[in-house]
């Protein structure tokens, strides 16, 4: 990702931000509220189109592509506010994630042709595997509204995993979770990493970020102010001033 900028009106949400993600690593994106973290994810996934810059993914240019095309290139994401499909059940949400790796069209679906039924079966199995992975197999047939927050976040991850992504972006995955849920999530992320996924995490929870990440990128007011291994970033003066300094008092009760 090179020199990406995005502004809304006169405000720069992202100002010439550049970074690279190493395949199979965990990178975290941190910064105070309004630093442009979520905007950055939205720009990468094509929800917003950046004003300038370039985005390359696995050697291909994905800058300016529509969101559904970016998704088909293997970039999956979750949302800060879950954005689950409330009219579908848990497993159907995961199955909706299989959209990119299935083909059945309207006619074959409507007449329930053998090809569509076969694909449906495959999708259901794949979705179930991902629910098992996140530990929600017992909730498969429940509607989304019955699930507590922690489980909803996991449904979001299962849905993104069903896309068989090579890059997974998690937008505040531990926000509002209890300590034991966070521990489970850390285990899950390690499992995903062992499967070769590249993971980008946007998060406020410092202990979570620092223990997990190989690299940390710090954004402030749309600009990148630091990038490096967690220990290095933790010692960076500018970072402390912009972010950690004012958040220390919060940390005592937000951390696990």
């Amino acid at each position, binding site marked *: 990702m090179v020199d990406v900028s995005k502004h809304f009106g006169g405000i720069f949400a992202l100002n010439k931000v550049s970074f690279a993600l190493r395949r199979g690593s965990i990178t975290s994106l941190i910064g105070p509220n309004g630093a442009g973290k979520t905007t950055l994810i939205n720009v990468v996934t094509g929800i917003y189109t950046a004003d300038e810059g370039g985005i390359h993914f696995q050697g291909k240019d994905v800058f300016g592509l529509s969101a*559904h095309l970016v998704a088909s290139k293997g970039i999956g994401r979750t949302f800060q506010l879950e954005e689950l499909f409330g009219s579908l059940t848990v497993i159907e949400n995961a199955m909706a994630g299989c959209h990119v790796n299935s083909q059945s069209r*309207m006619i074959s679906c409507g007449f329930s042709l053998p090809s569509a039924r076969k694909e449906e079966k495959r999708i259901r199995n794949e979705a179930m595997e991902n629910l098992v992975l996140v530990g929600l197999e017992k909730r498969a047939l429940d509607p989304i509204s019955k699930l507590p927050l922690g489980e909803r976040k996991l449904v979001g991850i299962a849905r993104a995993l069903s896309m068989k992504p090579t890059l997974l972006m998690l937008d505040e995955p531990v926000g509002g979770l209890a300590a034991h849920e966070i521990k489970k999530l850390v285990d899950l992320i390690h499992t995903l990493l062992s499967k070769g996924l590249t993971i980008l995490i946007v998060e406020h929870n410092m202990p979570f970020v620092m223990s997990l990440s190989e690299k940390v990128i710090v954004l402030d007011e749309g600009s990148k102010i630091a990038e490096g291994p967690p220990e290095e970033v933790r010692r960076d003066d500018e970072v402390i001033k912009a972010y950690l300094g004012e958040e220390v008092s919060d940390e005592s009760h937000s951390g696990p």
Partner: protein
Amino acid sequence: MKPIRKILHGWCFIVIAIGILPFVVPGLYMHYITGVMCFIAMYGALALGMGVLLEQAGLFSLAHPSWFGIGAYITGILAMRGIPSIAAIIIAAISVAFLAYIIGAPLLRLKGYYLACATFALLLIVDITIPQLGSLTGGHDGLLGIPPLSIAGFVLKGDFHFYYLTWGLCLGTLWFLSNLMRSRFGRAIKSFNDSEVASKSVGVNVSGYKLQVFILTAVMASFVGSFFCFYIRYANPLMFGFPLMVELVTMMIVGGGKTLYGPLLGSFVILWVREIIHIYLGKVLPVMNAQIDATFFGVIIVVILIFMPGGLAGWLDQLIQAGRKVRERFARA
């Protein structure tokens, strides 16, 4: 496996009930009842498509009756010029698909009430234009003397034939749509209704799917229009347009648009209630006209919205669930 068998049983029961109805009603009422049932099937099929479009896909298009009317008119005009019935039906469907594509592509960029306004304008435009086309559409008199439906030399006319034709079409539509909504296509449609941004992020081409479901329901409406004009053997500007739109929305609300079969249930209830009102109130009131109909529908909508916000289908689902709970409690005791 058990629930699937149960659903199958329910389906079979309804299909058999519809299949034997003309044979079990007293001969005296046969024509009357099958006649009303034909209209229920056709309006039901229309309402089913509209239900999917409005409630499942969240596309608030009010132009549904236009596709029905255009389909009916094209079929009628072609049939009167000696084109075989099947060819006329197919040409009408293809023309409607083409029109829906041209109109849907720009209009579906709108959302919510804006889409409703634009499609409402479309409804009025079609309503006004068709009578103005002079000899082609027969002006305000409409098309008179449409030949009967003939398939491979076999002429189909009258209530009895059309009873099976229209219910075949209606249940076929229900079957197709229920398959569709439980598939990849259906999940894509429901997903952008729930969260467009998440839908895009899992790779759903949202604008493409909106256009597809818009065209699909338009073509379904065109098929109903074709059968409609072959059944009543004329086409008239009054039979679609604003009043039909109101009627379809009423059916959706009364039946419950959140479930797939709700609009069909609504069609059944609304048309029979109207018949009953006509029979009994016709004796009491000096005049019986569309305004009195509309008043009754207004009252029904208000009552349903207050006491059964999910419509009859939602209410039935609640009853079934409550029944299941009671049974479980007995089983445990």
